[in-house]
Each structure stands twice: as structure tokens, then as C-alpha cells.
């Protein structure tokens, strides 16, 4: 869209997240003040995190994982589907991927491909259950995906007992370690950092581009967005909404299947009880933050990861509480949702006014106003 480059439009778009962050900063400071915690020191500690190479690496790595999760949620959002089940989907996917990966032996790129595809397919099918239930029985995907999360938790716990081996040096259990042919080496992108960046970050970038191209450049994407904007208009235009619901859920689930991959293939090499959980819910927050836009989501993921990582030093220092970060994240999400809605309304009324003005300026205005009944 040409008008995307309009500076005023960009300003309006940026206004909402900036407002939300400023607002969250104020609220968080008030909380610190009320709790009699050191306000200035807390903020300098948080800001300081951004200047340490090690922290930067951790932030980029977390953000990579969040990115997939938020993208998976965003695919649903664009169609007015609330896939709350990304959490269960990715855990089931990564678990199956880890089991299959440790059971087969293949040459390097193929081995990785098999694990990734297994995870994506399992996650997609798990999400697909919610899609099928919605189109055949009218079950809200919110309810069914929440339930599927709970079922996935139980299912994984049960199956893990069957295949698990003890993790050395702890009472943790997990799947067998993946061999070298299934591991992706890290990238030393951040100078002076002891932590390497997940090689899987490349896939994240590709997924972002793929998402963008799919939604805004293809017929399928048009149908998907049309359904999200107005289901009745989409039906009248010939979109098979039921089919779209199932496909979108499968697509969202397949993307969810990528969430666990950076950690599995680049760091943990096994699915254990200690494998990060709850990433699906973070994804919902980040998708909201990033307005379902691939670049917005990337920025949102980085911000979220930044706040997450900045909780670490607060935890260690005496007299500080790292929970303040969680409060800040919560306030950001809440205020960003409100701010976006305000900006959306502002934009619609602005545009109506702009059209009315432009038409008034035209030489032969039979319809001088854009507001006729």
C-alpha cells in the first residue's frame, strides 16, 4: 500500500505502543513507590541489561522463541480465531519431535528436517482438532484449545514416563539426547558474548517473511483477512469459511510446532520436565503487542524478552523484586490493547474527515460531505 509510507500514518501507528510503554513505565514506578522499593535503582538495573553482551544474546534467543509463538497466534487472530492452544500444541510437537529424533539416525540436514516436520505436523493436527470441532459442532475454539492444552499436559506427562531416561546429575527426566546430526550450531553474532545465538533464528526470519507474503500477497491470505474483517462479506464473496477455519487452525498449529525447535535443536537436545512451558501464552501477549504485523511482532518479542531477561539481575540483588517486570509486561499489554482501539477509532474518523475535506475541495461537489445517510 502506497499510503503506508505516509509519515502521518506511521506516526499514528507508532503512537499506540509508545503511549502504552510510557504508561506502563509510570504505573510500574508508582507500584515501586507504593512498595517503598528503590525506583531509580530498579530502572537503572533494568536499563543496564541492554548494554551487556551476554544479556543481549539471551534476549535475542528468547525473542526468537517468542516470535514463532506470536506468529502462530497472529495467524488465528487475523481470522478472528483465538488459538489459546499454542501452548499445548508446541509442547506436544516438540515432545514428539524429540522422541522421533532420538529414535532415527539420519544424515545432518535430513535429521533436523524430520524432527521439525514431525513437530509441525503433530502441532498442526492438535490444533486441527479445535478447528474440526468448531466447524462441525460449533464449539468455540477458545474453549476447545484451552481444554486441549490441559489434555496435552497430561498426555505428555504420561508418555514421557514411558520413554524417559534420567537426566544426568538431577532428578529430572527427559527424552534421550539427540545425536550431533540433529543439532544446530549457534551463531556468534554478538561480539564478546559467551552465549551463542540460536541458528534457528534464520528460520524465524523466513517464517516472518512467509507470513507477510502469504497474508498480503496471496489469494489465500486475502480470503483469510476478509473472513477476519467480516465473515458475512467473506461468505458472500465466495469464501468457504468452514474450510478456512480448518486450514487456518492447521497453519497456526504448524507454526506453533516451530516454537520449541530453537531450544530443542540448539540448546537442550532433549525434551525434559525442565523444558520451557507457557510460551504459547506469551505469544498471545506479543501478537497483541505487535498488532499481528510481522515486524511489529518482532519488536514486541524483543521487548518482551528484554523485560524477561532484565528480571534476572533484579532477582539476584538484595532489596529488589523481579516480579516488577511481570507487572510491567502486564500493564503494557493491557494499555496497548486500549491504545490500539483508541488509535483505530481515531484513524477511522480522521479518514472520514479527510475524505469529506478532499471532496469539498473538488470543483464540482454534488456530494460535499462524506457523511450522507
Amino acid at each position, binding site marked *: 500500500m502506497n499510503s503506508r509510507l505516509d509519515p502521518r500514518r506511521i506516526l499514528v501507528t507508532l503512537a499506540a505502543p509508545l503511549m502504552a510503554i510510557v504508561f506502563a513505565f509510570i504505573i510500574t514506578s508508582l507500584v515501586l513507590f507504593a512498595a517503598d522499593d528503590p525506583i531509580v535503582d530498579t530502572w537503572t538495573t533494568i536499563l543496564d541489561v541492554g548494554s551487556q553482551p551476554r544479556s543481549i544474546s539471551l534476549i535475542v534467543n528468547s525473542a526468537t522463541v517468542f516470535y514463532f509463538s506470536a506468529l502462530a497466534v497472529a495467524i488465528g487472530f487475523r481470522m478472528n480465531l483465538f488459538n489459546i492452544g499454542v501452548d499445548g500444541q508446541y509442547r506436544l510437537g516438540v515432545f514428539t519431535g524429540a522422541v522421533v529424533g532420538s529414535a532415527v539416525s539420519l544424515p545432518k540436514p535430513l535429521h533436523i528436517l524430520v524432527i521439525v516436520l514431525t513437530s509441525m505436523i503433530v502441532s498442526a493436527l492438535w490444533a486441527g482438532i479445535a478447528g474440526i470441532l468448531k466447524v462441525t459442532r460449533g464449539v468455540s475454539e477458545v474453549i476447545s484449545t484451552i481444554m486441549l492444552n490441559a489434555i496435552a499436559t497430561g498426555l505428555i506427562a504420561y508418555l514421557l514416563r514411558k520413554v524417559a531416561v534420567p537426566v544426568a546429575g538431577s532428578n529430572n527426566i527427559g527424552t534421550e539426547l539427540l545425536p550431533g546430526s540433529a543439532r544446530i550450531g549457534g551463531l556468534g553474532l554478538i561480539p564478546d558474548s559467551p552465549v551463542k545465538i540460536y541458528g534457528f533464528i534464520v528460520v524465524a526470519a523466513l517464517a516472518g517473511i512467509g507470513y507477510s507474503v502469504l497474508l498480503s500477497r496471496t489469494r489465500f491470505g486475502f480470503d483469510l483477512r476478509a473472513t477476519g474483517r467480516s465473515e458475512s462479506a467473506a461468505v*458472500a464473496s465466495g469464501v468457504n469459511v468452514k474450510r478456512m477455519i480448518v486450514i487456518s487452525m492447521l497453519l497456526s498449529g504448524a507454526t506453533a510446532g516451530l516454537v520449541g525447535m530453537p531450544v530443542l535443536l540448539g540448546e537442550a537436545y532433549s525434551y525434559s520436565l525442565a523444558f520451557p512451558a507457557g510460551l504459547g501464552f506469551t505469544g498471545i501477549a506479543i501478537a497483541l503487542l505487535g498488532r499481528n504485523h510481522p515486524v511489529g511482532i518482532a519488536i514486541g518479542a524483543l521487548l518482551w524478552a528484554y523485560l524477561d531477561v532484565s528480571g534476572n539481575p533484579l532477582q539476584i540483588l538484595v532489596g529488589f523484586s523481579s516480579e516488577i517486570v511481570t507487572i510491567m509486561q502486564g500493564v503494557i499489554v493491557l494499555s496497548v490493547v486500549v491504545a490500539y482501539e483508541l488509535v483505530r477509532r481515531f484513524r477511522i474518523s480522521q479518514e472520514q474527515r479527510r475524505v469529506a475535506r478532499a471532496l469539498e475541495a473538488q470543483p464540482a461537489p454534488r456530494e460535499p460531505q462524506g457523511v450522507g445517510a
Partner: protein
Amino acid sequence: MVANSDVNIAVTRGHVHAIVGENGAGKSTLMKILYGMQRPDEGSIAVNGKTVTFSSPSDAIEAGVGMVHQHFMLADNLTVLENIVLGSEPRKGGLLHHAEARRRIEEIGASYGLDVEPDQLVEELGVGDRQRIEIIKVLYRGAKILILDEPTAVLVPQEVDELFDNLRELKAEGLTVIFISHKLDEVLRVADEITVIRRGSTVATVDPAETNARALAELMVGSELPSPETRESTVTDQAMLTVSDLTLRTSDGRALLEDVGFTIHKGEVLGIAGVEGNGQGELVEAIMGMRRAEVGEVRLGDEDISGWPTRRRREAGVAYIPEDRHRHGLLLEAPLWENRILGHQTQEPNVSGPWIDRKGARKDTQRIVEQYDVRTPSIDVFASALSGGNQQKLIVGREMSGTPVVLIAAHPTRGVDVGAQAAIWDHIRTARREGLAVLLISADLDELIGLSDTIKVILRGRFVADVDPSHVTPEELGSAMTGAGASA
């Protein structure tokens, strides 16, 4: 009582004062100013001789000015009583004082002849009842001046009659009604005075007893009126759209359509006359494939398309101008060029293969904007920014693109001003001459009689009469629609 600087209107207490004008003539803006939703740049408003400034609707309500919007603002899952008191509840011990609320609603109902059942859920109610609730809501807040914005747009004729009875009752009780409309015959029936607005200023205030619809329309447009008359017949003997034995029922077995059948030939316009809600909507949806008929067949040319999904029908050349453009015709929060693609997602010039062809779609949108005179500064604005008439022109332009063979047009000129109406009629006539088969559904009987080659009357889901448009008057057609007159 009410005045404004470039628009001068004086409304007398106890009158029904109608304001008529084309789309975009400034009716809605005027109403927004009167109701405090928009500030006037200049001029003043006086109520009962006292100058007032409204900076918000609550100021207007305080001064006794209430507004009934065209689109109802009711909560479906609340009862009638709850909806009426919402926001100004009588309270007792912090809770809603039901008895008091009921007493006041019944009082209003009795004194103005507005019957409602306070405990019914709003979702169970029809449009006419909902409108009555909106009126009571305004009266409940103490309004003495009521503004009704296009109140009859959503009503069937019987409901319009009821509304007008209610308005007369209100008038008799000393209330003042400002009635915005562009349905001239209705305005003539109910108003005591009529003010015509054109291009944002008042043209004339006339006495309905001394004028007629045609004279009013000419005042509105400022020139001679076009007519929908079709001159020569272009009907061929080649059947384009054949519907036979179509039957459709609700889940509880009530027939929405029963044994409906007709054939439209190449170059023919078949008009369907009927009071709204007698199965026209279902008929259109069945032909478009948005709804499956249990029995019956739809053929396009020689092919049975009954089992085809909507998209395949559209690809085969069935164009569709929906009755409700906001629900079925547009993506309001999408730019015009994306709306050009809607409904034609698989067709040139919008796509090439699986890809959206932005350049092609944009170029063709520009063509539609020019050919159909869509007033917009650019094709990048949201569809919601256009006036209703311009939205309609965009839809008509879109549906006429790509040489359709059949056009299903439900109220193609609804909400469109007189000038654009004539242009749309011209486009339909030209396409018909080139062989387009048109199914025309319209509440505008002049349009129906003027454009159609044949007219069928639908009543409760059945065709009850065939009418020859060259020998029928709107009055005769109107009585056939209600089941009186013409033989079934």
C-alpha cells in the same frame, strides 16, 4: 425553535417537521449538530427561544432534544425494560428499582400509544418493536423534541404505518418530531412541514398539502428528474438463469420459500415485487449458493449449478449486488482497491495464479471510480470513509466488471442519490442490451416497473402473481404485494 446559520430551519412545537435531501446533502451532519455530536462552526441553535450550545449528546438531552438513530443501539441480551433505563436507572438501595422503571415505562406507553412488553428480551423482537423501544428510551429521558434519522429505512410498510400512527400520537401530546428521510411519499404522508436541503443549505420549506413527490425531488436535485423507464425490449429466447421448484424451510419447518420457479432470458430483467421479508433474501442467497435449498434446481444456461459453492457461481459470471452492503458487500476497514477484489478473488485483473495482482486491482479500481463516479480522494481510503451512496456505486461498478452473464441485484439504488440512481439504471440498461440477465429485487416500485420486462409478486415465500410492468401502476402493484388485489 431550532436554527442554524447556513441552514435555517424553524420547527414549530407539536409539528412533525421533515428534512429531506440527497445523500451527502448534509442531513446527517445537521442532525449531529442538533444532537451535540458535532460542533457547528458558525450559527446558533435555539430551543424554545433560548439559545443553547450542545457540546455533547447529554447537553442535548438536558435541553429536551433526543435522537433515534437509524441503526438501533440496543443490547440484545437485555430485556426491554433494562434497555430503556440503561444509563439512567431509577435506583433503590443501589439496585435497579424495577417497579419504578416499569411504572414509568407503562406511563409513557399509555400516554403515547407505544406498546411494549417490558420483560421481553430484545433479541426476540422485530425491527418495528426495536424502533419503538428506541423512541421510548428517548422519551424516558425527558425529550420533548425527537429527531428520527431515516426511521423507515428498516421498516416494512405495515410497520411504517404503525410508526406514523405513533408519531401522530406524539404530536397530539405536544411533542415535536424532526423526521429525516429521503423517501418522499412517506414524508408527504406524515409531515406538517418539509424542509429541503441541497449541498448543505436549505433550499425551501414547503407545505406538504401544496406539493408532490416529483416537485420535492426536483427541489432536492435542483434539476429535472431522470426516470427509470426502459424503452425497447431486448429479451431473447435464450434462458440464462432458471430456477425451478425451489423450497427452503427454517429448522422448525416453516417455509421460507415454497415451489419458487422462474426463467430469466438473456437481455431480460425480471423484477420481484414484495414486502420485505417475504422470502426475497432467501431466494437471493439460494441463487448465490450462500444457503442450500432442500428442494429445487438452479440452472445457469444449460448447467445445473445447484451444488456449486458460491465462488464457483461467481466465477461462472453471476454478479451480486447485496441488499445489505455493510454486511455482505464490503470490507469496511479495508481500502477501496481491496474491496474491488472482494467477490472476485479468483478473477482477472485482481489475481494472477495464487497471487494477488495489486497493480491490476488498483488500476481497475481507478477505472471503476471514474466510470461510476465514486466520490473519493483516493483508492487507498477505507470503504467506511465513503458515504453510503458512493459505497453503493463502488459495489455496482465492481459487480458489473468482467462481463457478468447474470446479475442478482437487491435494491441496487438503495441509499443512492437521484443523480447516481440514474447512472446505475443506465449501466443496468446498457448491460441488459448486451445480453445481461438481471434479477431485480427492489422496494422502489417505480424502479421495479421502469426497469423490469416481467414482474413477479412474492408473498410469504410464494409467487402469487405475474404482472406486466407496461400496464401496472405502483398502487396496483402495492396492493398485489400485500395479497389484496391481483389474483393469486
